[in-house]
Structures are given as structure tokens and as C-alpha cells.
């Protein structure tokens, strides 16, 4: 039954792809695309740096112009975390037994390093509009800190409920800020705060706020994936 269902899904997807590629109306003909007529030029235009207010052009595109896409990306990550949680069980009570004790230096040194890692990750998240980096790498570093503690301490169990609450709150706030843009300005996720001087910490309007939320959401999602992999059900 499962295999049949999978086959139907697979074939349906194939049909959809063929239909989409066969569509001659919405796709320009091969070789006839006018590359000078793309939005990329407008994004990279120097005037737009002052329009968005972000010193980092990648951040300006990812959050400023393509905020809606980013919301989708974060949702993809959320769904994959949910998939991992489904694949394993929900009733996680016991820490997975790693059989081998971590050595002393790793166990005690990782606590020192964890502090540095968290500060670095928060620095990267909050400076996403000024330096390379931003929400996604910062969130990944938070999660790697959690992974380090899991590997370094065989008794450690992170507060996974806190992570879930954090993830939910961050996701909801992202959407709420988008809706505020719809109300206060004209469209979803539009910037409604003055963008300030380029290069200052408090600049670029809603970009830093959204990037902080993305960072917290990504970090807590990946941390919950790590937790799911390293815990198991209480064997009855």
C-alpha cells in the first residue's frame, strides 16, 4: 500500500514536471532571453543600497527584496525538522547511550567553548546587515554548539521545549512583521521603519529584526533535529 502510494506520488510529480516544462507560453524560448532586462541589475544598483540601507548586498536581496522567499525557506527547514520528529518518535525521554564516555578535556573544555560559540553566533546574527553572515549561518552555529554539548557530555539534555517555544514565537513574529508592513506600508514585508545611515548598527529598517528572528528560528529548528537524533524512546 505504501509502495503504491509512493508510486502514484512519484508519477504525479513526473507528470507535473513534464507539463511545466512543456508549457510554451510562460517560458521564453531558449536563447531568446534578454539578460539585460532582469531584476538583478536593479538589485545591484548602487542607488538601492541607500534605498534598503543594508551594507551587505546579499542581505539586502535575501531579506529586503526577497523576504517572502526567505519565509518559504524557513518553512522548508521547519518542515524538514518536523519530518525528522515524525520519523523518530515524539515521546523522547531518554538520552541515547553513546557507550563511550567523552574524555575529560572535551567534557570540561566544551563548556568554555560553548560560551564563545554562542556569543559569536549572536554577533553574526545581529550584524547580518553589516558583515557577511546573518541569520542562517548564525543559527547553524547555535545548533552546532548544542551538538557539541551533546557529544561532549553524556548526561546533557537540552531544554527542547524551550527551543520549540522559541521557534514558534520567532516564526509568528516574522509573519506579524510582514503583516505590519501590509498595514503600515503597502505590501507584505515592506520596510516601514526609516532605514537610517548605511553602516550603523541601527539601520536598514526591518532587516536586522527579521534576521534576528530568522537566526533564532533556524538555530532552534536545527537544534531540535539534533535532539531528535540523539534521544530515544524509553524502552519499556
Amino acid at each position: 500500500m505504501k509502495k503504491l502510494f509512493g508510486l502514484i506520488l512519484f508519477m504525479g510529480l513526473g507528470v507535473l514536471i513534464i507539463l511545466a516544462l512543456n508549457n510554451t507560453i510562460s517560458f521564453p524560448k531558449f536563447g531568446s532571453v534578454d539578460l539585460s532586462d532582469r531584476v538583478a541589475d536593479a538589485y545591484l544598483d548602487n542607488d538601492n543600497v541607500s534605498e534598503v540601507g543594508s551594507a551587505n548586498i546579499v542581505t539586502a536581496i535575501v531579506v529586503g527584496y526577497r523576504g517572502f522567499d526567505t519565509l518559504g525557506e524557513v518553512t522548508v527547514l521547519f518542515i524538514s525538522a518536523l519530518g525528522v520528529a515524525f520519523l523518530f518518535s515524539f515521546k523522547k525521554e531518554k538520552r541515547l547511550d553513546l557507550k563511550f564516555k567523552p574524555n575529560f578535556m572535551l567534557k570540561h573544555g566544551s563548556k568554555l567553548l560553548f560560551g564563545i560559540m554562542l556569543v559569536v553566533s549572536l554577533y553574526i546574527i545581529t550584524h547580518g546587515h553589516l558583515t557577511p553572515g546573518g541569520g542562517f549561518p548564525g543559527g547553524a552555529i547555535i545548533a552546532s554548539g548544542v551538538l557539541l554539548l551533546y557529544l561532549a557530555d553524556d548526561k546533557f539534555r537540552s531544554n527542547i521545549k524551550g527551543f520549540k517555544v522559541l521557534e514558534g514565537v520567532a516564526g509568528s513574529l516574522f509573519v506579524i512583521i510582514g503583516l505590519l508592513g501590509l498595514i503600515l506600508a503597502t505590501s507584505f514585508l515592506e520596510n516601514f521603519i526609516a532605514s537610517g545611515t548605511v553602516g550603523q548598527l541601527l539601520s536598514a529598517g526591518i532587516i536586522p529584526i527579521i534576521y534576528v528572528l530568522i537566526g533564532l528560528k533556524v538555530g532552534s529548528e536545527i537544534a531540535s533535529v539534533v535532539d531528535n537524533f540523539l534521544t530515544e524512546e524509553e524502552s519499556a
Partner: protein
Amino acid sequence: MEILDIIVFSLMGLGVLFTAIRLIIGPHFSDRVVALDTFNMIVIGVIVVLASVFKSELYLDIAIVYAILAFLETVVFARYLEGNRK
């Protein structure tokens, strides 16, 4: 100063080459982990010197993040190796 940059880069590049050879031929998994650890440290050096060549301190952020991830990588591989017990 360009010639000095080239000297530094070539020294580090030779180091990277040697560790890469060990990474490929290393008879055991543990040798590969050691080679990878050394490799990552040299790459941190390369990033820092690149930051100096490009005169941009933003590259140092990348070096910090790389150092963090390199350490984590070493720990993860080492813990995996422990599972391969005799």
C-alpha cells in the same frame, strides 16, 4: 610586499598539499581525521592572510566561524571513530 605574500601563501600551500596527501593515503580512519584537523588549521591561516591581502577585517569573521566549525568537525569525527571499537 606582493612577493612576501606569495612566499607565505606558497609555504602554507605546501603544508596543505602534504596534509592532503596524508588525507588521501592515510592507512586508517584516525590518520585521516588527524590530517583533516591539521588541514583545517592551515586553512584558517590562509583565510587570515587573505584578509590581510584584501585589507578587509570582515574576512576575520569568516576565520572565526571556520575555526568553530573545524573544531566541531574534529570532535564529531573523533566521536564517530570511538564507535569503531575493537
